């Protein structure tokens, strides 16, 4: 394993394809309803965004903020971040490599939290089943949203952060010691 200083641009194809597919799936994920709630014969359907607005209107600001971050902000930031990293790897922005590697680590970490909305809809659909009194049903938007989450995770997974750096393994390098051990 000896990544060259200039990665083959064809390697960028996989993360780019996953990111583009995720961007396309974001349209149905945000336009289609994800949930249908019926309470005492009164029904309403919610998209991801209208669900967040309903939480906000009910005074549940903290919860609305959590769902907004997980369901809208993180997927958008991940896509923008992957686009930025692909650009950086392509233009060989070595001076920013350390900062870009931190960005990659953050994108890799935050992606899983987007699954929150999928678990949320699943739990509501399973728990709230009181016949005519109250019921919750999942709607097609949540399938599209789950696809966005999986595709963005696959996009960051297929991006290799060593593309951001010059030659990762200098030939015949005996290796430099890692930084002096520090107390964690």
């Amino acid at each position, binding site marked *: 394993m000896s990544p060259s200083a200039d990665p083959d641009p064809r390697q960028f194809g996989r993360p780019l394809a996953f990111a583009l597919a995720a961007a396309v799936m974001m349209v149905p994920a945000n336009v289609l309803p994800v949930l249908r709630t019926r309470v005492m014969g009164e029904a309403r359907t919610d998209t991801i965004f209208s669900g967040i607005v309903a939480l906000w209107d009910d005074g549940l600001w903290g919860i609305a903020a959590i769902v907004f971050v997980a369901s809208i902000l993180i997927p958008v930031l991940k896509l923008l971040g992957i686009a930025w990293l692909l650009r950086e790897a392509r233009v060989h922005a070595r001076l920013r490599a350390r900062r870009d590697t*931190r960005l990659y680590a953050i994108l890799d970490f935050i992606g899983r939290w987007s*699954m*929150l909305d999928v678990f949320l809809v699943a739990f509501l659909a399973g*728990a709230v089943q009181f016949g005519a009194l109250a019921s919750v049903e*999942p709607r097609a938007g949540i399938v599209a949203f789950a696809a966005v989450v999986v595709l963005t995770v696959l996009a960051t997974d297929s991006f290799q952060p060593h593309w951001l750096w010059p030659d990762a*393994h200098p030939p015949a390098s*005996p290796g430099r010691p*890692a930084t002096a051990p520090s107390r964690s």
Partner: protein
Amino acid sequence: MAPYQLPSPLSSARGQSLLGCPLCGFTHAAVPLAQGQRATCVRCGTLLCARGRLGPHAPAAFALAGLLLAWPALSLPFITVAKFGNFRPTWLHTGAEGLWNGGMPVLGTWVLTCGILAPLLLLGLLAALLAGDTRGAPDLHRQLLRLARSLAHWAMPEVHLLAVLVAMIKLGALVDVFIGAGFWCYAAMSLMLVLAWRSFGFEPSVSTTDGRRDPAP
């Protein structure tokens, strides 16, 4: 919780052990670590290795504790919801079942995988890797490690927990909600998985033989 990456010992040059940074790929000479110490990549700052304060058996203890908690987490009531005196107990798998019954079997299976199956399998794999020493069989050890890393991408019990907490607050206006013993066991199991995975990966005594990146469970 910071993302967790396994460092990758590359080869031994003249008996010297080398560590490759899992993010930037930079090669380092291994340094001996005392308990509580950690080593970071000189180039990108990524944590390469950390020796926990709890000793080398801590990851196995966490993994076994997680496995023991899995049974009550699965079998005891998770959350009970009530409306006008109608009580409806739910179990850990009720969410996936709700999607199945709602005509979304694939998504239901996916939720079951990320919330239950992958965390359980990961705990089992960690316990197998730590308790039964597979390093005598390098091929098996490598395959189990690779499987553990793939599973760790999709094992999301902590995200599942947060979603259930959000759902309970959201449901507060609609129905009455009671937390069951299964919920607490699942929360404890999730914590054990995170602790086992983190301490497992950062322990420099755990040898790895390839250089793939690892996700955070």
